[in-house]
């Protein structure tokens, strides 16, 4: 029921995503047919070439889909954020079943039938078109069927690089830990796989019974290809009006920030804004903005300096900002004014404990550490700038070794009394919801993670609206604002667009 309500509320978006999904699968499968069937025919005739080819497509198949997208992203012409990379990856995945069944279909034809064709004076080409291909067709269609069903499933991953499709809902749901949203993407994807499977099974039976002719099928495939080209070129024509592409990583806060930036640019007018939100992480966003697939996204100073440029982060906020700005500037990217909040690690305790024991700073923990059990995420425990450094910097001696657990569970564990102190996200919605208190990092141990928009310098010059919008946002989003918006989406299940719009209303236009 909740899923049905979700679809009704997001009718237009859901239909759009379903359409994208179908197009992704249709285009990639047709491309794989166009490449795979001739490759299979060739392989069936030249066994040496065939073996090498099969090894190649099998190897491609074993690369995990996310990794394949990662490899393809930086390749010019093929890669980049958006449907192009996804189509290439999906095509590669669809190749194996199609090539293999084409080879098998041709090789398993009764040799007496082939010999009959030769003895009747067929040329190799006539033999292929009149005998081998029609007889291999049921097998080839079985391969296309497998490829299509795999494609429907794999296409959900495409959302990670901004290609859209039903994976959008799945990724969004995962980052919000919201089952309804996950199901809103997963159910239609499964249904789509079943429908495609059923249709192709029907076609396979018709061909096997000899009801459909080769010529008819080739014509149908050609017509389908033409239709796709037409639809795609119309869609392409539509996207060539002046547009600005806004990206974001794949967690709630990032999606909200992306939406706020997008709406702020739209408010300035004059350009069309395309949202590529929920991209699969820092790496994908960084590739996107360097290649020009993105015009702007929000990064964090600490992340930029360490993860993007592999340098040590200055501990002072201002210095970290200046360093990030200087590093990006060398690459033709501009860091505009910081938004105002710092999504750093927060050392959190229960609100009740903080009040009763008068805890305000991390230094204050020294008196109670001997009696307390800490809980941390796996990464924080391992990283040198995590737990080991924290203990050293503040001279903390905990009474029990730290419990390690998944980040999503750690806030609940603190509230329930399983642990007494944790490291969390400074802007997490859980802090307010579970009445937790963040202790001040008075020795400035954690590097700053100030949220800063990163934009292509060329785009800023070409579209002054971007600069105006970002100037309007600078310094206007506090830690508290961010926590409240995260809570509204994660806990209140409010619509991201709605939350962003309401927040933007409060910021005056310059």
């Amino acid at each position, binding site marked *: 029921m909740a899923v049905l309500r979700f679809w009704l509320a997001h009718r237009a978006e859901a239909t759009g995503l379903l359409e994208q999904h179908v197009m992704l699968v249709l285009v990639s499968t047709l491309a794989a047919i166009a490449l795979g069937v001739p490759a299979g025919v060739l392989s069936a005739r030249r066994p040496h070439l065939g073996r090498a080819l099969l090894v190649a497509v099998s190897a491609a198949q074993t690369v995990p889909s996310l990794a394949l997208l990662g490899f393809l992203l930086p390749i010019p012409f093929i890669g980049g954020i958006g449907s192009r990379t996804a189509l290439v990856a999906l095509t590669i995945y669809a190749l194996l079943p199609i090539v293999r069944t084409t080879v098998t279909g041709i090789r398993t034809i009764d040799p*007496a*039938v082939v*010999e*009959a*064709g*030769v*003895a*009747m*004076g*067929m*040329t190799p080409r*006539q033999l292929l078109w*009149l*005998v081998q291909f*029609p*007889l291999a067709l049921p097998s080839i269609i079985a391969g296309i069927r497998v490829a299509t069903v795999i494609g429907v499933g794999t296409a959900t991953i495409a959302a990670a690089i901004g290609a859209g499709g039903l994976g959008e809902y799945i990724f969004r749901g995962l980052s919000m830990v919201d089952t309804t949203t996950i199901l809103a993407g997963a159910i239609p994807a499964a249904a789509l796989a079943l429908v495609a499977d059923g249709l192709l099974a029907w076609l396979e039976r018709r061909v096997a019974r*000899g009801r459909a002719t080769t010529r008819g099928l080739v014509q149908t495939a050609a017509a389908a290809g033409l239709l796709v080209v037409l639809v795609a070129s119309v869609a392409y024509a539509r996207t060539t009006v002046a547009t600005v592409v806004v990206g974001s990583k794949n967690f709630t806060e990032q999606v909200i920030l992306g939406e706020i930036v997008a709406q702020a640019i739209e408010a300035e007018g004059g350009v069309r804004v395309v949202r590529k939100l929920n991209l699969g992480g820092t790496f994908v966003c960084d590739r996107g903005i360097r290649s020009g697939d993105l015009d702007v996204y929000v990064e964090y100073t600490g992340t930029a300096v360490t993860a993007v440029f592999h340098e040590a982060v200055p501990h002072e906020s201002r210095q970290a900002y200046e360093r990030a700005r200087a590093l990006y500037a060398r690459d033709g990217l501009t860091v505009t004014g910081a938004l105002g909040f710092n999504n750093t690690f927060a050392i959190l305790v229960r609100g009740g404990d903080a009040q009763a024991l008068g805890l305000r700073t991390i230094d204050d923990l020294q008196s109670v550490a001997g009696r307390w059990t800490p809980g941390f995420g796996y990464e924080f425990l391992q990283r040198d700038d995590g737990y080991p450094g924290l203990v050293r910097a503040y001279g903390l001696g905990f009474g029990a070794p730290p419990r390690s657990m998944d980040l999503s569970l750690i806030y609940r564990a603190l509230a329930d009394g399983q642990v007494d102190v944790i490291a969390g996200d400074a802007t997490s919605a859980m802090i307010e919801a579970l009445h937790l208190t963040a202790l001040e990092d008075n020795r400035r141990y954690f590097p700053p993670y100030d949220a800063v928009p990163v934009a292509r310098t060329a785009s800023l010059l070409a579209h002054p609206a971007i600069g105006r919008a970002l100037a309007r946002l600078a310094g206007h989003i506090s830690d508290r604002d961010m926590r409240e918006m995260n809570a509204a989406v994660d806990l209140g299940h409010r619509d991201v667009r709605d939350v962003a719009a309401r927040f933007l209303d409060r910021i005056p236009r310059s």
Partner: protein
Amino acid sequence: MLVQFENVGFRHAGGPPILSGLRLSIEAGQMVALVGRSGAGKTTLLKLVNRLLLPTAGAVIVEGRDTREWDGIRLRRRIGYVFQDVGLFPHMTVEENVSVVPRLERWPAARARARAHELLDLVGLPPPIYAARRPRELSGGQRQRVGVARALAIDPPILLMDEPFGALDPVTRAEVRREFVRLQDRLHTTVIVVTHDIAEAFALGQRVGVIDGGELVVYDTPSRVASSADPRVRALIDALPPLPAPGSR
């Protein structure tokens, strides 16, 4: 001479000889039956005629030209072939099967169709009933007749038949065979039949040859072959149940 084997030998690369020193002349319009046990090289002999194989010694002359000089495709379009295991195309209807070669020869569709129907009538399969059927909807005997009709489609001067009626039950075989002999009387096509069944060879051939160990042991009229004193011929004949009178076709 329409088909001539001049001292023909054949062996696969590195293999033992399959045929050797074969001399054989076949006149236009003749029906020749060659008999031998399985593995005697009969099918190889047929494949040498339509250039599916080239001799490794000697020469095969078809219509006055060495098969080495013939274009394989052109040659095969002039030679009908009826296969041991029929080899009908399972994805085509009976009519499409029969009109394959006319279509390869780019006959107009209407003419190819008319020819297919004419041939189906000729082999006793009325087109209104059979033309649209698929091979799997036919009995073994019917399929064999389609095979013959297909081989005759463009009136080839030469017809090769490899164990053409072997897969049929004895009653059907006798019937199809009789019909075929009548057909050949009318068409005067040159026919080379190979079979392991000497009774069949006597029933069909105006000339009968016996192949043994890759050599042509005897080649003569059926009655003279039947009375041959050669032990290899006698072995074949003596293995038979009581014969119908040789050459009583």
